[in-house]
């Protein structure tokens, strides 16, 4: 029989205001197994903890129940407390009398009754608690950074500069991400490429960073300090070790004007062999197998022809002929790379809302209605129009430009109720750029509110308005249509309280930022979660903003939620610091509250192996008897195996069937 000590916390008036703590404490002494019971103002305070330690020693308590706030809050605190008193830290059970009782119960009597029930259940459960000791795992001090935008670049450089090896995986042929597509950055109007490209080069040249472009993460196994990751290196059909980046092949590709270039948001063409942009890192072209004529034409070896007839040849192959170094290799295959990492950084960035959903703005069918990103490319000197602001419909300079904010943000009807945070600022920037390049053009900005929280942001918007004369109109545009070679905007000016109709030559939609289309799939691969919009979920928005629920995995930048470059860089630095903290350990303690399988009870049905979301269970054999075995370092303690196990061989330590039954029994009987 165990000797249980019960300590009820007032939590000031948080608990004591609704629960008769003295009564709960007095009644608790009558629960079988309880040898001591008391109540105190703040158990978590130093004085409160001392009371617990002294009581444990004086009353020979070997198991402890604390009725307090959520175990999420102070379970660790109290584990340390009872450890100081000489007990195993896992001989503790928390009855959550705050979140589960006082905060959610109106009536004092029923609150007190429920509090007592929870204390009974906790006593029942703790009486079957067994001492647990954490395991130890080594740390592989290498980091995987997924995504080569500014977030990934910053995180990779910071981690690499701490002296740790980094592998960066980028899906596209070049790193650079969204920031590489931008022309200028707010609020300083720095040239985006000028501040980004040196960092891109740093990544390529850093002795601690290995760059895998045109690659994707396919599978993640393992646990903190020891992840096994499979990376698919897609065939580039160009040998990186030979190619010098002369781009002779790119200029000779017969399709070079035929395929929309993703980097230019589809507004300029590329070939089947291409580098996405001039400053690409690495400057090695790739062949797009969806379009390349050689790769699409059938292999002559597989074609059977009648005797005497000539076999048809492969089409094209111009790039291979032009490459003097012989770097083109049409036989190249995708390569699967398996690597071990101690930490994983998700820096996969964001997408922009597709304005096809806005039928009222032409659903993408009106050529002179473009998006902010289209404008970034247009105004960039290496973009499709070489930096000239022109109407896509006729190539003329627009005389009147209208910006519409909140397209695909703060619009519940379109499924995006959140604010994208960047659009107010980039619209102000683009308004300035229009006025700078076309001083004669009029600029109108339709906005809902201006959200300019950030260093120098409000001033920047005021500059756009006062210095550059952008006209800000508060109101939403309800419709855009073409008429006599112009665009007509129907809107309401909500300050004047009047409907408004305006002609414009060009409309730029400030499309909001959304999660990448593959973010949920990536989250599933890694075994983490996303929010309702597909953004990666953090553990705690305030206190653990870059940690995700799988230990050893971190996320930064716009993969977490919409954010601008300064915030992205800041979170990337934060992630690097967290990885540094992790890598400062040679050995990690693993949580002992994980599953284990009793080999004597196991019937080797394999259900647990199948259901384990962390691939932590394997089938072993000893002297002809098969049984399941849990890798305790990989186990996250989710308990799925325990639920699937028919004979009850798989049990979660600290949450065993015995403990749960005992706590149910305690509530019903005592």
């Amino acid at each position, binding site marked *: 029989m165990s000797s249980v000590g019960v300590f009820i916390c007032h939590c000031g008036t948080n608990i004591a205001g609704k629960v008769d703590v003295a009564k709960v404490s007095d009644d608790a002494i009558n629960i079988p197994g309880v040898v001591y019971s008391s109540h105190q103002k703040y158990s978590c305070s130093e004085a409160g903890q001392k009371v617990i330690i002294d009581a444990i020693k004086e009353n020979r308590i070997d198991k402890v129940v604390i009725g307090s706030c959520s175990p999420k809050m102070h379970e660790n605190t109290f584990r340390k407390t009872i450890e100081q008193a000489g007990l195993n830290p896992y001989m503790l059970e928390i009855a959550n009398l705050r979140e589960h009782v006082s905060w959610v119960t109106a009536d004092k009597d029923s609150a007190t009754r429920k509090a007592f029930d929870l204390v009974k259940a906790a006593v029942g459960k703790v009486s079957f608690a067994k001492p647990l000791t954490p395991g130890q795992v080594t740390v592989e001090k290498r980091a995987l950074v997924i995504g080569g935008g500014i977030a990934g670049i910053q995180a990779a450089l910071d981690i690499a500069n701490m002296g740790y090896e980094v592998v960066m995986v980028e899906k596209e042929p070049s790193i650079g991400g969204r920031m590489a597509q931008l022309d200028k950055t707010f609020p300083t109007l720095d040239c985006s490429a000028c501040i980004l490209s040196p960092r891109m080069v740093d990544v390529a040249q850093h002795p601690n960073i290995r760059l895998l472009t045109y690659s994707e993460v396919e599978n993640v196994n393992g646990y903190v300090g020891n992840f096994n990751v499979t990376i698919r290196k897609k065939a580039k059909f160009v040998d990186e070790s030979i190619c010098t980046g002369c781009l002779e092949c790119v200029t000779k590709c017969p399709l070079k004007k035929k395929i929309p270039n993703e980097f230019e948001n589809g507004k300029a063409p590329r070939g089947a062999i291409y580098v996405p942009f001039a400053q690409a890192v690495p400057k090695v072209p790739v062949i797009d197998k969806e379009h390349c004529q050689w790769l699409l034409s059938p292999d002559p070896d597989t074609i059977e022809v009648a005797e005497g007839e000539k076999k048809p040849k492969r089409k094209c192959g111009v790039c291979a002929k032009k490459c003097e170094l012989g770097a083109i290799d049409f036989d190249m295959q995708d390569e699967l790379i398996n690597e071990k990492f101690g930490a994983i950084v998700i820096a996969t960035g964001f997408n922009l809302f597709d304005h096809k959903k806005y039928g009222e703005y032409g659903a993408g069918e009106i050529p002179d209605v473009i998006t902010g990103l289209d404008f970034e490319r247009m105004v960039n000197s290496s973009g499709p129009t070489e930096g000239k602001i022109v109407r896509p419909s006729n190539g003329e300079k627009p005389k009147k430009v209208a910006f519409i904010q909140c397209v695909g943000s703060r619009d519940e009807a379109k499924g995006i109720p959140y604010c994208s945070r960047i659009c107010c600022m980039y619209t102000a920037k683009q308004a300035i750029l229009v006025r700078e390049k076309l001083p004669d053009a009029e600029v109108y900005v339709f906005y809902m509110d201006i959200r300019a929280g950030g260093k120098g942001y409000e001033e920047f918007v005021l500059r756009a308005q006062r210095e550059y004369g952008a006209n800000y109109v508060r109101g939403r545009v309800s419709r855009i249509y073409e008429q006599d070679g112009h665009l007509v905007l129907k809107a309401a000016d909500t300050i004047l309280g009047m409907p408004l109709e305006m002609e414009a030559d060009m409309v730029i939609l400030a499309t909001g930022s959304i999660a990448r289309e593959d973010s949920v799939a990536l989250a599933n691969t890694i075994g983490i979660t996303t929010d309702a919009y597909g953004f990666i979920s953090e553990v705690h928005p305030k206190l653990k903003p870059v940690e995700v629920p799988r230990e050893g995995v971190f996320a930064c930048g716009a993969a977490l939620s919409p954010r601008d470059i300064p915030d992205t860089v800041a979170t990337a630095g934060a992630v690097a610091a967290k990885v540094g903290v992790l890598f400062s350990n040679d050995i990690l303690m693993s949580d002992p509250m994980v599953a284990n399988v009793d080999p*004597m009870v196991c*019937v080797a049905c394999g259900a647990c192996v199948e*259901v384990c979301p962390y691939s932590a269970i394997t089938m072993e054999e000893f002297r*002809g008897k098969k049984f399941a075995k849990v890798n305790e370092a990989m186990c996250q303690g989710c308990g799925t195996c325990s639920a699937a196990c028919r*004979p009850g061989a798989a049990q979660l330590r600290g949450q065993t069937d*015995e403990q749960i*039954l005992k706590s149910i029994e305690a509530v019903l009987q005592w």
Partner: protein
Amino acid sequence: MEKLEAELREKAKELLEKEEVTTVIGWGAGWNPAKASPLFVRDAQDADKLVFNPFCQNNLAVYLPRLNEKAAVITKPCDAGSVVALIAEGKIDRENVKVISIKCPGTVNPAKLEAAVGSLDDATAAYLDGDTIVVEVGGKAKRVPFAQVALDSCYLCNQENAFGDIVIDEGVTKVSGEAISIVPEDADSVWWRDFWAKEFDRCIRCYACREACPACYCRDNCAVQALRERWTGAKLDAKEALMFHAQRAMHVAGRCTECGSCERACPVGIPLGLLHKQVGDAVRKLFDFNVGEKADMRPPLETFRKEELESGH
């Protein structure tokens, strides 16, 4: 029927002589002519002891998970699914098992037969004669149409899809008839509650249903008789019995082929097949999964698939 039995013995002899297997699991004569018992033949000479007739009830797949040798098992079409399901669960090694599949004429339901001809205890002979079951008691032959006394599942049996390494097909005609359901069309939860309360009141917790079930291979480790704290009590009452049967039904959900072994094994005649059919219907509806169809697919209730996560199942 005789030809079928002769061919069966021949095949068994051959397998044992060529040492392809060390045992052949089939049926032998029972303690009474209207019964057949499971028979393990380990010697080619004993192959002639194998019988096959409409009284061969047992689903012999039940022995496979605990066997540690190369074995051949004789299966009726209704049992073959159990073998497939056990392969799918990794409980039997495909290489160690040879399945001898028999096209059978149908199996007698002893309860129906006893109802038709009286006690079978003193029967001196029992056999299938054309489409009639003949039982001889005290020198007198009692005849009853097979269609009247076959297992309900035989009427629904589709022999075409039987799985087997060796198929013995001697052109038997399958019994046909109509199953009579004891469940009213408008049975609701109240009806079912009362029905099972009444049925399980008879349960003596002998666990014969479990022992006869090929999916219940936990044997001595079964959760209902574990020595530690457990979810079911051992008390003899309808509530505890319901808990036991409900737990068993959940444990075999998505794994049960509805072979009917449990119901046939029950000494007090609880219609367990109804319980497993209900669970089976739910599994088919939810997961579009037929137990015993594919040997490379784990049971749906013990798989964790990312697609399910995405589709919100």
